[in-house]
């Protein structure tokens, strides 16, 4: 955190000064470790074993927050008899189909109820058949069926709000007992063997987090997005979620799982998404086969389930009204037919494959430098060299705009500028101080920022670029009568402009996002909350979760009232605006006990006020404000009505925090430790080596180093991980062109332990060549005690640290080989994120060969390891298919 978020780290230091204990778990000793009370080095890619060990510690000693767990989580809910765990199937869950590498998750459902395996299956395809058998409609046959694509980013649905519970937690099929059996083998000894973390250190962490949780105390887990960048990335976060739910640390002040995002407003770019699979406010993207708005809405939430997703018709209709205005009518389904459809995985890496295969003509890059910043840099560049056109908007002439003339493949002779047909258009971009708008940070806080200076020269804002691009396209299509052009022709595209360059009004965009009434007394007035949204076309709103940011016609995100003027450093609710409804802590109903009283005075946040019959407190209650704690819904009630007075997790289909996920995930209802796709270690926990549902791309551009289950592992005996340094920003577009930053970390380097340096003859400040099946890169050597070799399974594992800020090109102040070129692609099936924080390599002293020699050098490694396109692509290692299906 100190490395990548030094400004935010000031608050950790503040907390430490007040007595908080800071524990840092990281393969290397970083600037964060330097200030922490306790640092634990662990093997990259072993985190689930570590987290599972903590779960076991909590359960064995019954240290969980029992009242909280019984009332607010699904610990008491019974799981169906058909469910089989990794304990039963040596690392697989029930429902695995080895032919497709996917699960039919219907066997994971709660007792007595069929649970849709994934939300997309409810609608059951073009026929509109809404049968509830939850059978595997396409999950089995379509490897590209990511949960993200199916569901947007919302919680999975359930067909019914009712479930069977055993609040004594004794039934062997209740979730808590399932959990206990699942983690039975995650002993401290096993944690040591898998993670390389000595038991006495592991013990300290277990004691610290349990002692610091309960009525009076809460513990927070903080991660940076590297935690997600694994073939089991989603399950890492699930692991932390289980711990936090067991300890009662969700929905309470000082608790939670805090994701530190990689850039300013990355949170905003998922809320108002730049992702292919979701629409604003985490509504799912429309899929091919969805003929009508009803088809689509059926797919979002079952009308029979609990919680606020049942209001999706109002959110979606308002979104369509904001896009198509008067042209969106009940008769034409509010323009639903004009939405593009997705028919599979269109994620960033699939798009690169499609580029290589000649299926993509053009590509926009905005503030992104995939030639350096994305995994498989070489494949990124080869893909971009196979386009017709490429638009790059950036502050500087980044490597993604110059790879065609000075990239590594030009040096090796694989590409030559004369032969590349990609036409590259470079547009200089305005920086954040040259434009106005909002940033949304990880706490969901929107903060409006003013423009400080006018953009210099040809620099323009993204808003300017897209508004005028849309304007020009619409002008050209104005007379079109083609059906395919209707979406553009009918779009509301009427933002006021100002200034010399006709800059569109960012304020008008924020107002549109907030939404407004279209009919009645209040027509034209801004909405004040998403509860006002209607599904009858009488409201408009561009992103339901942002509704309220312009409540009362005031830009709430621009509020700058100091905490000093708000009664102290508490939540400072009048600084900026947080979605939804300015709530600072989500699910904060859980900060009070089932009867509505704070768990303790020290941790009071919101509570039930009996006299006024309302929820009240320091934060905006995240609960129907007049629903009493004692309220029990009538049988069969659904939606918000279906929530009981003690169902704090109001976006979940049963109102409970999910220790066990009966649906919604593609790789299992519980996190299980799998080795990374590339690992020199045989999985000590199960016969199943790696995530059996990970998405691999076995092709000649994307070869894998052999895992421990295959011969050839010894050719790539070391583990490497990639990361950022404080001095640079991601792929360097904002730092390597700035001399004051470039000089602070001028060269690509690798961090190695003294032990590895001796083993391989590496000299401090000398050169090293790091090799994988993809390529070889050279780096200066930094020998440091901050990297320690670890004992893993009786062997010593050496880890190599590679900051990924440098790239090969001619325009930056400093350049160098790119660590991301070493990485292959193996993706988490749920969200299609790449595994880039744990892979294997070799390291040798000296500089790498140049020109075509480099290709021969890498080829030699491949042949020594016996690598083919099949290497590493055996998904199931847990035994014959017949035994597990």
């Amino acid at each position: 955190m100190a490395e990548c978020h030094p400004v935010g780290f000031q608050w950790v230091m503040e907390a430490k000064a007040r007595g908080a204990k800071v524990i840092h778990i990281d393969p290397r000793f970083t600037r964060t470790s330097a200030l922490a009370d306790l640092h634990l080095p662990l093997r990259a890619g072993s985190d689930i074993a570590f987290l599972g060990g903590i779960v076991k510690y909590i359960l064995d000693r019954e240290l969980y927050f029992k009242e909280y767990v019984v009332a607010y989580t699904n610990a008491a809910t019974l799981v169906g008899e058909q469910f089989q765990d990794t304990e039963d199937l040596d690392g697989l869950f029930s429902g695995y189909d080895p032919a497709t590498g996917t699960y039919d998750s219907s066997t994971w459902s709660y007792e007595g109820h069929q649970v849709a395996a994934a939300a997309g299956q409810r609608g059951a395809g073009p026929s509109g058949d809404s049968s509830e058998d939850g059978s595997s409609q396409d999950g089995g046959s379509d490897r590209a069926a990511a949960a993200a694509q199916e569901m947007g980013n919302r919680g999975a649905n359930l067909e019914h709000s009712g479930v069977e519970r055993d609040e004594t937690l004794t039934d062997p099929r209740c979730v808590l007992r399932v959990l206990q059996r699942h983690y039975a083998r995650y002993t401290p000894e096993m944690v040591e063997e898998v993670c390389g973390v000595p038991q006495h250190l592991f013990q300290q962490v277990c004691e610290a987090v349990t002692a610091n949780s309960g009525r009076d105390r809460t513990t927070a887990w903080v991660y940076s997005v590297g935690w997600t960048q694994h073939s089991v990335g989603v399950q890492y976060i699930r692991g932390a979620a289980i711990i936090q739910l067991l300890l009662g640390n969700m929905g309470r002040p000082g608790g939670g799982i805090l994701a530190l995002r990689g850039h300013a407003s990355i949170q905003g770019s998922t809320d108002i998404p730049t992702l292919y699979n979701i629409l604003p406010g985490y509504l799912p993207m429309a899929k091919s086969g969805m003929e009508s708005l009803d088809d689509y809405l059926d797919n979002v939430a079952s009308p029979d389930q609990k919680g606020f997703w049942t209001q999706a018709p109002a959110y979606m209709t308002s979104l369509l009204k904001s896009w198509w205005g008067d042209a969106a009518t009940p008769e034409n389904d509010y323009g639903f037919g004009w939405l593009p459809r997705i028919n599979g995985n269109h994620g960033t890496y699939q798009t690169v494959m499609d580029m290589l295969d000649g299926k993509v003509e053009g590509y926009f890059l905005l503030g992104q430098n995939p030639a350096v910043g994305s995994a498989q840099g070489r494949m990124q560049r080869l893909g971009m060299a196979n386009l017709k056109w490429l638009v790059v908007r950036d502050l500087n002439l980044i490597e993604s705009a110059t790879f065609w003339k000075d990239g590594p493949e030009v040096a090796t002779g694989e590409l030559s500028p004369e032969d590349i047909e990609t036409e590259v258009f470079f547009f200089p971009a305005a920086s954040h101080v040259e434009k106005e708008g909002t940033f949304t940070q990880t706490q969901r806080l929107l903060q409006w920022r003013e423009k400080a200076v006018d953009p210099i020269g040809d620099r323009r804002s993204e808003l300017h670029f897209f508004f005028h691009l849309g304007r020009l396209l619409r002008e050209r299509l104005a007379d079109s009568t083609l059906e395919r052009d209707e979406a553009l022709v009918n779009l509301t595209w009427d933002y006021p402009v100002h200034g010399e360059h006709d800059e569109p009004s960012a304020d008008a965009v924020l107002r549109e996002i907030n939404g407004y009434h279209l009919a009645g007394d209040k027509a034209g007035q801004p909405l004040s909350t998403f509860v006002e949204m209607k599904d009858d076309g009488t409201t408009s709103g561009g992103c339901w979760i942002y509704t309220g940011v312009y409540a009362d016609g005031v830009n709430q995100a621009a509020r700058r009232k100091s905490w000093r003027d708000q009664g102290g450093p508490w939540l400072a609710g009048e600084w900026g605006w947080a979605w939804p409804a300015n709530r600072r802590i989500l699910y904060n109903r859980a900060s009070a006990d089932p009867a509505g009283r704070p768990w303790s005075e020290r941790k009071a946040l919101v509570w039930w006020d009996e006299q006024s019959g309302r929820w009240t407190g320091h934060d905006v209650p995240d609960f129907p404000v007049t629903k009493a704690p004692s309220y029990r819904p009538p049988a069969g009630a659904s939606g918000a009505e279906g929530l009981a007075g003690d169902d704090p997790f109001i976006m979940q289909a049963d109102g409970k925090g999910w220790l066990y996920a009966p649906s919604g995930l593609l790789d299992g209802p519980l996190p299980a430790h799998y080795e990374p796709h590339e690992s020199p270690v045989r999985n000590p926990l199960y016969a199943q080596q790696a995530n059996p549902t990970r998405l691999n791309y076995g092709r000649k551009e994307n070869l894998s180093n052999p895992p421990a289950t295959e011969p050839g592992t010894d050719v790539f005996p070391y583990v490497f991980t990639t990361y950022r340094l404080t001095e640079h920003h991601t792929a360097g577009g904002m730092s390597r062109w700035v001399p004051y930053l470039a000089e602070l970390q001028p060269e690509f380097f690798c961090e190695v332990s003294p032990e590895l340096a001796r083993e391989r003859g590496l000299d401090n400040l000398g050169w090293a060549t790091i090799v994988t099946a993809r390529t070889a890169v050279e780096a200066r050597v930094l020998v440091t005690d901050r990297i320690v070799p670890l004992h893993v399974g009786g062997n010593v594992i050496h880890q190599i640290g590679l900051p990924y800020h440098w790239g090969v090109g001619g325009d930056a102040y400093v350049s160098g080989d790119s660590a991301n070129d070493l990485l292959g692609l193996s993706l988490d099936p749920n969200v299609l994120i790449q595994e880039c924080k744990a892979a294997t390599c070799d390291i040798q002293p000296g500089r790498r060969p140049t020109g075509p020699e480099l290709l021969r050098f890498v080829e030699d490694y491949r042949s020594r390891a016996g690598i083919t396109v099949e290497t590493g692509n055996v998904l199931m290692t847990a035994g014959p298919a017949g035994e597990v299906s």
Partner: protein
Amino acid sequence: VDNSWYGPVDPAPNAGWTEAPPRKGFFTDTSICIGCKACEVACKEWNAVPEDGLQMLGSSYDNSGALGASTWRHVAFIEQPKALGNQEPGFAGTAAGAPMTDVLNRTADSALQGDRNALGTDMAAVAVGKVDLGMPGMQLPGQADGAQRTDFRWLMASDVCKHCTHAACLDVCPTGSLFRTEFGTVVVQDDICNGCGYCVPACPFGVIDRRVGEKGVTKNVGIAQKCTLCYDRIGDGLQPACAKACPTTSIQFGDLDELRERAEKRVEQMHAAGIPSARLYGENPEDGVGGVGAFFLLLDEPEVYGLPPDPVVTTRHLPAMWKKAGLAALAMLAGGVAVFAGGGS
């Protein structure tokens, strides 16, 4: 007693300022420095200090090397196999091997020993043949006492011009380029400095230096440069750029008297927190430079950070020397007079 040359004194009034504001200074609390180098960057941005070389130094995360004409804030990174209070680095029980002697390590200390300009030359040549000087910061990586690594600490500290009460640089400046401000700080006027360089060896901390670079490309080549404590900001009621940018308040700016009180309390806190080696550096008006305007909280001996343990103003004996020189001159004059007197007889 005239303390103009040595001993406690309030430097601004002593320099002739009437109605001087309270003396300003820095308190740099290294115990909460996270090594982000925002101070280095903010300083360069505000003061238009040029880039200072694009070489990796191989000395932990320090690639600035030392304070100099083009580095007015410098963050030192010190990796040592020593414990820091009750901190648990997590290395005990891991698979650290035997001490390694075949990997040579350069550190900022060796940079401070030698010609700073050499840092910008061939690093490979510098790296080979360096010897361990036995300084605390010279521990070779992995060269712990035994085969197992146990204790470890990574210290970070942002160094800066000390703005001495008795500033030798100022004393020896023949042009008046260096002067004492009303805030008690010491500032070089780059349009007056003639680049004579007398100030460079006069500084007991090795802070001030003449800028190297290509004339016409880099500004002020040959001119002595150092921290001004943002004279152009504090005069307008602003904080110096480094203090403003510091995310953890490791760099604190304010009235020196108040900073000293704050620092004393912080040291007590650190002692209570199990770090008895925490101490202040440069805050004592009785020390060899009369106390400094930019003092530090260190977690160990000053040498660990590359700071002189007992700095003394190099012009301490100047009055006595002048007195003796004067006496000698008088004696010679007297002798000459005697000769002439004798010759005339």
